[in-house]
């Protein structure tokens, strides 16, 4: 080591550690990281809602009567809101997962295309939610 290197003033270098929850607001979230955290959140929501989802499936399949009763529940605004959240969670997780599968095959891993696919995930999942909701609520 030369003198010049040893005597260089020590600069305070930035440290990057695990993000603490309280730091979240200070971080700039690129599209890919928004997709990523929503992937996790939507997965958790669906895991927590599994009994509700199975209950809905059961009511819709058990008999003509339970099907009609369930259709009645589904006409309530709150039930529609819950259904929309679950649908969005499913489609977001679905699209983000498909993006993952392509990236595992080293497709679209460049910065620009990764950003584009992240944007596509957000848009396509909302579109799929919208279309399915229209059908579910009897528009077509």
């Amino acid at each position, binding site marked *: 080591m030369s003198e010049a290197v040893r005597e260089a003033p020590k600069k305070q270098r930035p440290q990057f550690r695990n993000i603490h929850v309280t730091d979240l607001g200070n971080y700039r979230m690129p599209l890919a990281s928004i997709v990523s955290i929503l992937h996790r959140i939507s997965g*958790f929501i669906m895991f927590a809602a599994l009994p509700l989802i199975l209950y809905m499936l059961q009511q819709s399949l058990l008999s003509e009567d339970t099907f009609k009763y369930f259709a009645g529940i589904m006409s309530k605004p709150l039930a529609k809101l819950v259904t929309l959240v679950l649908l969005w969670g499913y489609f977001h997780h679905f699209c983000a997962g498909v993006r993952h599968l392509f990236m595992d095959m080293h497709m679209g891993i460049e910065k620009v295309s990764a950003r584009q696919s992240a944007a596509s995930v957000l848009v396509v999942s909302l579109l799929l939610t919208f279309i399915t909701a229209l059908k579910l609520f009897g528009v077509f």
Partner: protein
Amino acid sequence: MADLNVANNHNDDSNIGRKRLVVGAHYGLKDWMAQRITAVIMVLYTATLLISFLTGHNFTYEGWAGLYATQWFKLFSLVTLAGLFYHAWVGMRDIWMDYVKPVGIRLTLQIITIVWLVVCAAWAVQILWSV
């Protein structure tokens, strides 16, 4: 996700081939693969269900239950749901490993997760074979 880092740490030269040090396990890679294989099954199932739902006219109990009454769709549903529950286990374990550091609490949450998923799996079988 966290598992992969563990698996990658054993890549030094002294630790390959027949002299490989048998520590850890390859549950990291196995679960990583399982996560993707079950995902592909769920993609196929979702496409099947979504297309039949969106293209169907006049959504009735007969049509809906009729689909689930066929043997092939029962089995397709069962395989998909089994994959879904395993997929959910891998994902939930990642979440607990990332955010819950105390071993006791983490283990408790993992056990609750497994029980939760096994109960759901049994219920799913009951639902499918009640049609």
